[in-house]
C-alpha cells in the first residue's frame, strides 16, 4: 500500500468509527485528535480495525506513532506493504 492508500485506509476506518466526522479535509501533519473529536476509546478502535482488516498489530506502546496521518504512513508503511486497501467494510 502506498501513502495515498494508507491515508484512505485510515480515513475509512475513522468514518466507520465516527460516521458524522468529515474526514476528507484532514491535514496530514496535524494531530488527528486536534482535528476531530477522538478520545482514547476511539483510538483503540483505529488500532482494532487495523488488526481486523489488515492483520496489522500495533502494540500499546506504539499508539503514539499514529497521532497524525503522516505518522500513520511512516509507521504503517512497512507493515502494510503488499496488502490491498479495504474500504467500506
Amino acid at each position: 500500500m502506498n501513502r495515498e492508500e494508507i491515508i484512505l485506509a485510515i480515513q475509512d476506518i475513522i468514518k466507520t468509527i465516527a460516521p458524522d466526522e468529515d474526514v476528507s479535509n484532514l491535514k496530514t501533519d496535524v494531530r488527528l485528535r486536534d482535528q476531530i473529536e477522538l478520545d482514547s476509546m476511539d483510538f483503540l478502535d483505529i488500532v482494532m480495525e487495523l488488526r481486523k482488516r489488515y492483520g496489522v498489530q500495533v502494540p500499546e506502546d506504539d499508539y503514539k506513532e499514529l497521532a497524525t496521518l503522516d505518522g500513520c504512513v511512516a509507521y504503517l508503511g512497512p507493515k502494510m506493504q503488499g496488502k490491498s486497501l479495504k474500504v467500506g467494510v
Partner: protein
Amino acid sequence: MTADRYDALVIGAGMSGLAAGIRLAQFGRRVAILERHALWGGLNSFYKRGGRRFDSGLHALTNFARPESKTAPLSRVLRQLRLRFDDLHLGEQGRSRLHLADVRLDFSNDFALLEAEVARAFPAQRTQFASFVRAVREAEPFTTVDPSASGRAFLREHLTDEDLVEALMLPLCWYGSAREGDVDAYQAIILFRAIFLEGLARPRGGIKPLLDLLVARYKAEGGELRTHHGVESVLRDSRGAARGVRLDSGDELLSDRILSSAGYVETRNLCGESSAPADQGRLSFVETQRVLSQPSASIGALHTLVFFSDSLRPAWRRPEEPVDLSNGVIACSDNYAGNEIAPRGLMRVTCLANPETWCAYDEAEYRTQKDRWEDAICAAAAPYAADPRPLTTQVDCFTPRTITHYTGHTGGTVYGSPRKRLDGDSGVPNVHLIGTDQGFVGIVGALMSGISIANRHALVAQ
C-alpha cells in the same frame, strides 16, 4: 461432557454484558454471553402480563445528550457500539421535581431551570450553587477523587444550607448509591452530571426496543447469546486462574477471559471464594407500576419524575419495616415526549425495602404483604403527584424477592456492593467484573462499564 473454547465468556445478558459482548464480537473474538434467564436485560428487562408489556425498572435513561455533544457519555457509548442516536427514539422528560417536605425544586433537561429554582428557594446559596456546579463540571472523578470519599462532604464543601444539600442528595442516592446514608463522591459527580447537566429521556416503546438494538448488533457481529444458560461455577486451573465455566446443565465452556456482571460477591461465590460482610450491598427496592385509564397529567400528576421525602433529612438506608414509605421516586412514563403510552397513563413508584423481611415470608404471606404495601406506597406517593388507585386498570409490583429471583443479585440489591472495583478486579485471575459492581450504574453507566472493561482486559491485553 462437551468442552468448547472461547476467546471470552460473559456472565449475564444485562446492559453491561451485552455491551461487552458487542465490543468483543465486533473485533472478531469468539464470545458467548451466558444468561440464566429466558430473557435478556437483567435489572432493566421486560415481561408480559395480562397482554401488556411491562418494563422491569425503566424510570429514565439518564445522560441524555444530543449527538452534537461528542464527548458526552451517551455519545461515546453509541460510537463504541456503532449505534445511531436516531435509532434510540428518545423522548425527553418534561418537568421533574425534588420535593422534600415543603421544599420544591423543579428541573428539566434545560439546566437553567434548576439554577432558577435554587435561586428562588435558596437565594442565599446562589453563588455557592454556581461554584458547586463549576466543581462538578471540572472534576475528574476517576483520577482526582478518592474513591471512598463522601459525596455529602463534597456537596458541603460548596453548599452551606443543609436543606439544599439533602435535596440534591436525594436523586443522587436514588439513581445510584450502593452506600447507606451517603453516596461516593465520584459517583455524586457522575450522577449530578447524568441527571441534571445532561438530562433524562425515555426510549419510545420502553426498554425492549433498546435491548433489541443491542442484541441485533451483537448477533450481527457473530456473537452467541445463550439464554437458559446459567453459570453454576467458574473452573480454575492449578494456579487459581479461571479457565472456563460449568453451566447449570453440567456442560463446560472453556476460556481464559471471563467478564462477569453477576456482582462482586456473587462472582466470588461462583469462583468458590468468600467475600467480606462489608462487600454485601444492603439496599433494595419495592416498586409498583400502575396502568391508568387516562394520562397521568389529567389527574394532576404533571411531572415526569418526582423524588419525594416527607422530611428534609431523608434516610437512605435499609428500613426496619418491610418498606420505607417516607421517601421514594415517582415516574410518570407518559409524561415523556413522544411516548407510546397515551391515551393511557403509566405511573411507577419506588421505595426502599428490607430484603430479609421480603425473602422470609412464606408464599401466602408474601402475596398478602405485597398487596398491602403496594397500596400503602400509592397512598404515600399521592400527595406528591396524584393518587393512581381510582383510575388503575392494571397493577404490577416487584419486591427484593423478585429482584433476587430474576437477576441473581443476593439480597435483592440493585446498586450492588458498596465497595466498587473500578479496575474490574474480582480477586480471581482472568475474571473481570463488569456492570454495577465495577462502579457504573444505570443504563448508560452499565453499557460504559461493559465497554471499558472489554476494551482494557479483552481487547488491548489480548
